[in-house]
């Protein structure tokens, strides 16, 4: 029964992954008569039509456009599973995988630290607000949540950048490009990264903190009114015991899901923030790929983002499985 569930979840994930791969393969092929023509426009000057046809034929051959879609697809999947996302259209045809892996850490710096920070502060403050229900801390939270959830992160980013960056000069208005290439794990460098990442992180997740806080607060309140908390209180357990042993275990469940789901959303959303702060992460890589119509790279990034989302979902499911015994017995959540 227990193992069944895990296997089912994993199979399910694999199935979705295959579907995502398929989409990834076909999306850039929609509406293109002859991909070769798009990928290799002829040059100025002496190229004759025959020469151009020759190049197109060569391109078709090199990219495998001459084969049937199915054969191309099989090839694509085969390469994918050997960790090869193909080669970018960029000059020199660098490997998409390497390009992504080069940028990934810098996007993760933003999104993971943002996640952790917002989850930490959000959960702490949310618990605090729930215990302070109706008082200042709580009302302030609810009021700010109405404001902050309605403000897209890039507007917050623009305002922060205008006020704290360009205006007061407390934080850099844009990321130090050199930092990313010369990073060496020294304390100063880590500090520098934090200093540069401060504004992006704040603007990405100031709303997130509030979001976490509100959902924590609400689930604490909901959980607190559950009967088993009453039982725990009727047992005369200390408040902290009730909080950590009874309330926390239950309200963390939905928050785990939220955390995992949030991760993929954040990396996707980082695209905008990276642009505002000149941050050389996956987002800028993606926009660059878009400008050059570099489909292998675009689809590579998409696949990466989708995989992260999938993995996050799977992790959330498995965590649920570990944390909630009801799921282990096949119960609905």
């Amino acid at each position: 029964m227990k193992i069944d569930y895990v296997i089912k979840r994993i199979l399910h994930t694999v199935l979705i992954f295959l579907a995502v791969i398929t989409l990834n393969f076909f999306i850039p092929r929609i509406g293109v008569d002859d991909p070769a023509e798009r990928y290799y426009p002829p040059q100025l000057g002496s190229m004759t039509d025959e020469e151009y046809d020759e190049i197109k034929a060569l391109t078709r051959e090199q990219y495998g456009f001459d084969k049937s879609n199915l054969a191309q697809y099989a090839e694509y999947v085969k390469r994918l599973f050997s960790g090869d996302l193909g080669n970018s259209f960029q000059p020199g045809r660098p490997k998409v995988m390497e390009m992504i892996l080069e940028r990934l850490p810098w996007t993760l710096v933003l999104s993971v630290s943002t996640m952790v920070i917002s989850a930490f502060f959000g959960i702490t403050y949310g618990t605090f607000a729930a215990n302070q229900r109706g008082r200042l801390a709580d009302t302030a939270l609810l009021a700010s949540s109405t404001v902050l959830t309605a403000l897209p992160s890039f507007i917050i980013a623009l305002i922060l950048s205008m006020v704290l960056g360009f205006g007061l000069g407390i934080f850099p208005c844009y990321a130090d490009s050199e930092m990313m290439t010369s990073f060496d794990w020294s304390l100063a460098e880590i500090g520098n990264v934090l200093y540069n990442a401060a504004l992006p992180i704040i603007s990405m997740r100031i709303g997130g903190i509030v979001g976490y806080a509100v959902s924590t607060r609400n689930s604490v309140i909901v959980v607190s009114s559950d009967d088993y908390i009453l039982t725990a209180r009727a047992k005369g357990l200390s408040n902290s015991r009730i909080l950590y042993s009874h309330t926390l275990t239950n309200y963390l469940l939905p928050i785990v899901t939220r955390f995992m789901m949030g991760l993929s959303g954040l990396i996707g959303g980082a695209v905008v923030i990276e642009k505002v702060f000149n941050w050389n992460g996956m987002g800028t890589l993606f926009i660059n790929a878009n400008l050059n119509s570099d489909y292998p790279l675009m689809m590579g990034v998409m696949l990466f983002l989708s995989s992260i989302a999938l993995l996050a979902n799977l992790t959330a499911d498995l965590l649920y499985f570990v944390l909630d015994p009801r799921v282990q017995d096949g119960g609905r959540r």
Partner: protein
Amino acid sequence: MKKNRILLLLLIISMGILLTGCNQNDKSDSRSDDSLYVGYISAGFPAVFMPWLSNQGISPTVSSMIYSTLFSYDEENDEFLPVLGKSWEYVVEPDQVPQDQDYLEVRVEIDELATWSNGTPVTTEDIYLTFDLASDFSRSNHAGTLAWTGDLKHDYNADRSGELVRQGIFTVNHPGDYEFTEEDSNVVYFHVDKVLGAITPLFTTILILPEQEYNIISQELKLNTTSPTEELMYLFKNPMGSGPFTLNVDNSGPGVIVLERRDDYHLKDDDGGILYKVEGIKFINYLDEIVAINAIKEGDIDVINSSVSNIYVDNLSENENVSVDTSSSAYVQALTLNVNVPEKYSTPERELLKDPILREAIKLAIDQEYLISESLDGQGSMVRGGLFDENNKYVNDTLPFNKIDLAKANQLLDAAGYLVEDGDKFRSKDGVSLRFEITSNPGLKTTINYIQVLFEQVGIEIVYHEGGNNATKDYFYLGDFDMTIQGVSFIMSNVDMMMRAHFVTVGYSSNYGRVVDEDLAAKVNEMRSTLNYDRKIELIKELQSDIAALNYKIPLYTSSMSSAYRTDVFSGWVSVKGTGIYNDESLQNLTRRQ
């Protein structure tokens, strides 16, 4: 309640830790070296550098610093200056070449002091391999700057796939019918098309590759294969060139490219000292112009590689350490009409554009002065006949400036049967209304808005149509556009190329948006192949007025370009017409202030 206080405390403490962690400002050490910091506005830096395979973004800039060409071209004196090549000569002077010989022979001597960055000398083998690869379809496709190698005269038996009879370039090691002397070990011969300018692109645009590395290229492992091997990728990632700078691979990334000066570079300054005075160059990527502008104000960079928008000029000038240099740009913006529509994309409107009367009327509706003052805020100048530089001795200065004449335009259109139907604002003919889309990138939208206003007065409706991110790939090559705005330039070194494409040099080009006229084509060919210099100049000027009269590329303006640079760290900036303040001459002249 106690619990709450602890929670609150925890919150405050961790917030404090975070903030103090953030407050480590160590910006000051970012200028610890003597490199020139160059801001570059693009979506990101490439990870690999294969000199031939890109003509976009920073790649050509960096490649031309790491690798070198045979010669460089001195626009002012119309002569080739030595780089890898020490000297060159026609084996037989062009005017003495027999009529039945359709090629010229050029002899180039390689500088024996020139070395690769690993210290080995540049040899004729390198030159041979380079041109061999560049002209060999089976080992590398044309890409980027290699288009010109079609002018090398290879002769085959019957067709291209047949036996090679005469090789267009050869070295001592690949002798043809020549006798070689001992001193000739440094010599390469070119057989080129009988076109005066043909040697220019061969000399000045093809970056020489090291034979010791690129000898792995074969028919199986093509140079621009879509999936390079590890070995090839290594070469792209760790470029070894013969240019004045080398790439510091470890310190370069998506945001920064670090170039270091080679002190063993074979070219020296007049006093025999190091030619390039800057010790290194750091290109720093900025996604947005505004960020670069702020960086130069803050002192994070010394110069911005590209022209800055006019709106910032006043703001930048407020900073005492920042100067702004204004010079004219290398391009004329021209309204290009699609007169050579491929069948697939033919529409009634596009067919109408083939009517010279309509084109004439369109030209008459354009007011250059108005466009310059309104859309450029006065930062530009008028142009004639598609060319702009009045000091250029090849420009036909008898050509008149385009002047707006709405009355005449309306009169022409009325006479040609383009009439305004009742209740209609715009003209139409045979049920086809004069409604055209200008396909362009959003950057030119302001200009297009003003063109809309101008054309409305002659009853032509103009609609803006965004044409994708990459004009050439998305619409220009395909020929799927009514009108577009295109940069047109005229550089003497490439004059025969320009002329054949009717002045276009920006990126790729195509037949679309170019009148295909047999008489004109014949005249262009005559100009290209004539070996009489004076006759050539005469034809160039004639062609200019012929092409201008066709009115399919209607000059709008040439905009001024403003280059921003700092004067507190380096001195000795040199402004070069058409390229702005960041150029090779500046790099050779800049000295670090103490």
